[in-house]
Structure formats: structure tokens, C-alpha cells
């Protein structure tokens, strides 16, 4: 048997032989390569010597100031001439995707618009991860979906403490089986709020908001728009730490904005008015609007603007924050969808809006931050960086440290809130009689117990 590549010779022995043959070839190649490398090194050395002749040796050594603050990220190495430390970033590489069979699925978490998420365990290490199966639409003939491609590229480039960590991408046996392996977090803010009896405390809201905005600031600094910020995409672990997730809508942007931006982004309830009006040029302000909606939702413990459709969404926005005019939002009439708005001018909903009245418990600093985030004019919304230094976060109550956060049962982790069914108050009517037989029996088991030294052993 010579391990020929016949398609009929597919039995186990043949496979084994082929495998061995391949390995032997590989070994031989490695040895040969080593010899070649040695030779190449010799030639390279000679080449360097030649190059060095060309380079006139410097009379003075150049000194480079050392940035000590980056010491942790970057290694300084001494160059061969020993004159200056060179910066060396840790290099990365690539390797083929592993198979999904390395993971054992534990339970289903949710089905988002971009894929199915489940909790899984890596068999080798026992580590718990979230496994997201990408949705593939192969019928379009467009190959690997561009959203999925962007999500992978953006998540692998955006490493930050408030962005969910993409560990690797694994594949199944079918070409359509692609899974993202991400760190598992116990909660998402939407499910958590639905399960909670009381809304978050003001100090907790500040901590949550600061973390969300810090994550968004990092994204915007790196020219990434999230384009789908909402409570169900914001994950929290049991230590009160927030991580942004679901980058299925995210993409890189530029200044001026790229020409091929799509308008159909952001879940309706969190969608900024300029998007509802059909703008084709938008920027970081759309994420800031979503943050405003999330802020309001955290205070109220329910979504702020629950529109049934695009028009209803706009109506609710205007009821909350008032109607736009040429002064407050110059140029909004030029947007595609705004021409039909004339009708609304004299409608009873027109006016200043009811934002302050709807949030009576918010301090004035908090209310003005919320109003700023929910400015109709995108240019009036603060940037993520400005939000982080807002006076709202400095006034009492100060943000609660994450270590002090309460813990909650994790729905995604398959945990349930233990409900102690406390009895109801007695109903009107006749008082129930006490069953005398039962009453006489309440200590009856006691007689069967043996009394020992310090503890009682009950005989069954």
C-alpha cells in the first residue's frame, strides 16, 4: 500500500498510512528547512555586514525619551548596538479555527437578531463561556455575511474592560457553522430589570451609566459606531461590572462619514430622531441618543420610548422632549422624512415636552444630563467624554463601587430567584378550627429521639 490518493481507498488502515506518510514528509521538510534556514542566516549575516559598510557609523548616540507609562504594554529591548531602547509590541499571529466540539453546550440563553447564544463549557479547561452561533444567509450568494465579518473584526480589535471579550472563533463541520466564543456574563440589563422588584438605586445607576459610557467612549475613540445600544445588549456580571455586547450592527466610521452608511440601524425604541427622519450621514451622536434612552430606562425600570412603529416612535419622542424647530435643530427640515412633519406643528402635542415632569425623582443635574443626551439636534448631544465628566456623577449620592453591588440570580446561568411563598393575611369569615389530632402530634416524634451529648439523633 503506497498511500496513493485514490478516492476508493478510504479504509482506516489506508488513512493511517497516509497520515504517517504525511508526517514523515513534514519531518523531512522540517529538517531540510532547518538546513536552509542556517544557510539563509549565513547569507543574511553577510548581507547585514555589507549593509553595515554602507551605513556610516554615527558619531553621536541618539537618545530617545522613554515613556514609562507604557511600560506594561510595550517591551523595550536593547538594540544590538546598545544605543537606544526600541519599542516592541507583543506580536500576534493567526492559527486555524478550532472545532466547536471542544465545547459542551450547557443551556440556551437567548436568540438575538444575529444569532443564537448558549452557555457552554470548554471541555479541556472547564471554563464557562458564551457561545454565539452566527446566522448565515447563504441563499443570497454573498458568501460570509458582512455583518458577521464586521462583528468579528471589531470585537477582536476592541479590547477593553467594558467591551465583551471575544476569545476565538470556532467552526462546526458544515461550512455555515461559525461560533463566537465570548466570556460569559451572568446578566443582561434588560432581563435583570424585568426580574428585579425595585429599580436600581441612584448610586447604582451612576455606576452602570459610567461604565456604559466608558465603553462607548473607547469605541468612538477607535472610530467604531455600535449602532445597536440597548439594555439587552449590555451585559453585567455578579460584581456589577458592565460589558457592551452584540456588535452585529457595529461598523467603522470616518470623518467625513463614509458614503455607504445604512439608515436602518438601532432597535426602534433606542433610535435617534435623525435616523427616523432618514438621514444618510450620521455619527457618534446616534449612540449617545441610545445612551439617553438607557439612562431613562434605568431610572424608570422600563423602556422609555416604546413606539409601535417609526411614526409612533417620533410622536413619543416629541411628547417627551418637545418638537424641533429651525432654532433648536437647524436644517432638520432638509432631512428626507421631515417634510411631512408640518401637520404636527399645531397639534396638541407640540411644545416643550414633559421630560422634567416624568422624572420627578432625578436631581436637576441628572435631569439636565438626560435632557442633553435626548437633544433632538444631534450636534447638541454631549460626547461620551463629556458625559464622563458631567457634574451629575460628582454630586451625592456618589457612584457605588462595583464591589458593593448586590448580586442577583442569573437567568442566563439557569438560576432562579428563590421565592419564599409567604402566607396571605387571613380572609374574612369563620376562623379555621385547629385540628386537635394534628396538634397533639406535633411533639410526637420527639419521643423517638435519642438524646446524645450535645446533639440529637433522630431515629427514622
Amino acid at each position, binding site marked *: 500500500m503506497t498511500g496513493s490518493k485514490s478516492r476508493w481507498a478510504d479504509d482506516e488502515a489506508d488513512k493511517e498510512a497516509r497520515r504517517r506518510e504525511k508526517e514523515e*514528509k*513534514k519531518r523531512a*521538510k*522540517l529538517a531540510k*528547512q532547518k538546513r536552509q*534556514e542556517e544557510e539563509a542566516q549565513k547569507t543574511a549575516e553577510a*548581507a*547585514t555586514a*555589507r*549593509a553595515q559598510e554602507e*551605513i*556610516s557609523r*554615527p*558619531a553621536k*548616540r*541618539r537618545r*530617545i525619551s522613554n515613556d514609562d507609562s507604557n511600560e506594561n*504594554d*510595550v517591551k523595550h529591548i536593547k*538594540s*544590538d*548596538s546598545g*544605543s*537606544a531602547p*526600541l*519599542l*516592541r*509590541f*507583543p*506580536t*500576534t*499571529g*493567526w*492559527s*486555524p*479555527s478550532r472545532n466547536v466540539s471542544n465545547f459542551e453546550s450547557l443551556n440556551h440563553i437567548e436568540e438575538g437578531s444575529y444569532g443564537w447564544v448558549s452557555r457552554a463549557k470548554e471541555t479541556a479547561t472547564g471554563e464557562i463561556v458564551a457561545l454565539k452561533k452566527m446566522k448565515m444567509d447563504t441563499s443570497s*450568494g*454573498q*458568501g*460570509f455575511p*458582512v455583518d458577521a*465579518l464586521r462583528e*468579528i473584526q471589531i470585537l*477582536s*480589535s*476592541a*479590547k477593553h*474592560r467594558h467591551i465583551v471579550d471575544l476569545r*476565538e*472563533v470556532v*467552526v462546526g463541520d458544515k*461550512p455555515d457553522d461559525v461560533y463566537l466564543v465570548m466570556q460569559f456574563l451572568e446578566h443582561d440589563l434588560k432581563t435583570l430589570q424585568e426580574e428585579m422588584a425595585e429599580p436600581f438605586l441612584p448610586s447604582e445607576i451612576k455606576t452602570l451609566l459610567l461604565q456604559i459610557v*466608558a465603553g462607548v467612549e*473607547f469605541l468612538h*475613540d*477607535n472610530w467604531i459606531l455600535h449602532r445597536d445600544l440597548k439594555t439587552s445588549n449590555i451585559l453585567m456580571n455578579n460584581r456589577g461590572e458592565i460589558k457592551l455586547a452584540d456588535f452585529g450592527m457595529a*461598523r467603522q466610521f*470616518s470623518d467625513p462619514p463614509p*458614503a*455607504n452608511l445604512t439608515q436602518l440601524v438601532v432597535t426602534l425604541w433606542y433610535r435617534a430622531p435623525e435616523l427616523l427622519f432618514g438621514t444618510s450621514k450620521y455619527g457618534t451622536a446616534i449612540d449617545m441618543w441610545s445612551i439617553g434612552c438607557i439612562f431613562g430606562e434605568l431610572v424608570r425600570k422600563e423602556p422609555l420610548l416604546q413606539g409601535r412603529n417609526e411614526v409612533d416612535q417620533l410622536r413619543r419622542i416629541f411628547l417627551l422632549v418637545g418638537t424641533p424647530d429651525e432654532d433648536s435643530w437647524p436644517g432638520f427640515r432638509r432631512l428626507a422624512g421631515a417634510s411631512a412633519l408640518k401637520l404636527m406643528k399645531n397639534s396638541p402635542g407640540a411644545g416643550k415636552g414633559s421630560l422634567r415632569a416624568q422624572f420627578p425623582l432625578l436631581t436637576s443635574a441628572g435631569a439636565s444630563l438626560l435632557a442633553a443626551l435626548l437633544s433632538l439636534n444631534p450636534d447638541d448631544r454631549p460626547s461620551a467624554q463629556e458625559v464622563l465628566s458631567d457634574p451629575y456623577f460628582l454630586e451625592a449620592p456618589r457612584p457605588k463601587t462595583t464591589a458593593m453591588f448586590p448580586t442577583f440570580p442569573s437567568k442566563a446561568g439557569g438560576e432562579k430567584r428563590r421565592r419564599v411563598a409567604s402566607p396571605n393575611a387571613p380572609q374574612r369569615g369563620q376562623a379555621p378550627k385547629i385540628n386537635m389530632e394534628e396538634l397533639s402530634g406535633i411533639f410526637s416524634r420527639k419521643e423517638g429521639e435519642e438524646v446524645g451529648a450535645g446533639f440529637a439523633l433522630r431515629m427514622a
Partner: protein
Amino acid sequence: MAPEPSQNSVLVNPLATPDQLSTSGSQLDGVPASLETSVIHIGARLTQIAGVLLRLPQDLIAHAVVIFTRFWLGPESGSLCEYSIKHVCAAALYLTTKPSAHPKAPRSIINVLAYIEALGTVFFVQDDMDKNDPESYYVSEGTYFTERAQLTKVESIILRVLGFNTHVALPYTICINYLQTLGVFDDDSGSELAKRAWAHLNSALLSPQLLFVTHQPPCLATAAIYLAAKEVGVKLPSEQWWEVFDTDREELGFLVVAMLSMEGFLREEKQNWAGKRMPYTLDVVEQEIKALTDNS
């Protein structure tokens, strides 16, 4: 909340490991190393030419060439006996442009590649490009559908081989930054120097030493500037200025020699392939392997 370093920065490229450089799927399938180098070079050229015809900016083309090159490295990589360079080139271009600001339809890519294939060679001068015989590069609807199916299939294989890591950092932008830092644009010769350095980077992209997957962008940019300055006759600081750009003398020397060797390599390649069919498809590669093993 201090910013953490981004893993995929513009300065850092994922590089091939020594293991990936020493073994390849093609070699395990019995492709002679010299032929492998030559065919991958032709594939890289094919990608570059197709990118120009697709009116893509050079950084996107270079991105596609790097993805194309990475696909063939390492023991679990693509093998020249299994995938034709034409399909991998098409898929690399498609994959790279898809999420960018310049997406290209599969039909455009397939048409452009058919056109280049009809030219008969990738070692051409500008005049050959004007040759126009539409019959020779017409893609019928049936061919288009089979080619598109191939394209999407190879696309998913590339992604699997690369572990979905499509990040590429390129030396072009920082090359200009470095030239500005060196203050060469105060002089008229500055733009000539920039063009020359840029040209060296473009040829290094196709180098048989696979410089773009073995060296970091700062080193490539520095070496291109060093070599271009010698050629154009621009005087750079007499100090070891390359150290400012994080390149040590040894690496600089190696890169300069590698860039200088491109001319000879290209002349040889052009000669070797003169009058032969280009190895765009698997059957030509098989013929070449047979010819080489028969001779030895």
C-alpha cells in the same frame, strides 16, 4: 479607567510563526518549494493587478495580497494542489473589500480576473493591457454562477484557515508619517523620495521572502525610506535615525537587501514563465510539478 492597548493596532501585524514559514500545506502535498514560491508570487501579482483594475485604493489591495499570502502558510493551510490561485485571489479580494468603504460585487471580481487571464501573463508592460478582444474574456452566465460558488466556498475556507483573523496593519501611512518626521518634504526632492519609498513597499508586498507577513510595518517603512533615500540622493540624518522608528540595524540591513533582490528575482521569474501558461488553475500547477519531478 485607563485605556488598554488595542490588540490589533495600526502598528502591529499578526506575523507568521517560524513553524508556519517552515511547513506549508503545499509542501506536504509534494509541491517543490521553488515552484511554491513562484506560484504564490504570481498569485500576489494577480491580486495586485486585479485590484488596480477594480479601482481599489492601494491599502485595500495590499490588505488582500497579505490575506492571500497568509492563506498558504503553515501545515494546516491551503495547498496549491487543492485550491487554485485564481479562486483564492478572487476570494481574498472579495473578503477584503466587503466590509470596507469600497465593496466589490463577485461579478466585477470574476470579470476582471477573466480579463487578466485572457492577457496570458502577469509579467506584462502597460501596452499589453490595452489589448482588447472581448471574446477572450467573456464570462457566460453559467460560468459566472460556478465561479461565484467557488468564490464563496474558498472565502469561508480562507476564514477558517486564518481563524477569522483578517487584521492587517500596513506600512504605507506610517511611511509618510516617518518622511514628515524626517522633514524631507521641505525640499523638492521630498515627493520623489516618497514615491520611491512607496514603490519599494509595493514591490516588497510581492517579495518571495514574504516580507509583509514576516516584518512589522515600522521596519518595512523604515527600510523603504532608507533605500529610497540612497537611490534618490536625499541626505538623511547621520545618526541612527531608524532606531527612532523602532527598527534595529540588523533588521534594516536584511530588509534593504531583500528589497534590492526583488529586481533579480522578477527578471528570473519573467524568464522562467516566458511562453508558458500561467498557473492560475490546478491543472497547470500539476503539469509544472510533473515537469519538475521528471527533470530531477
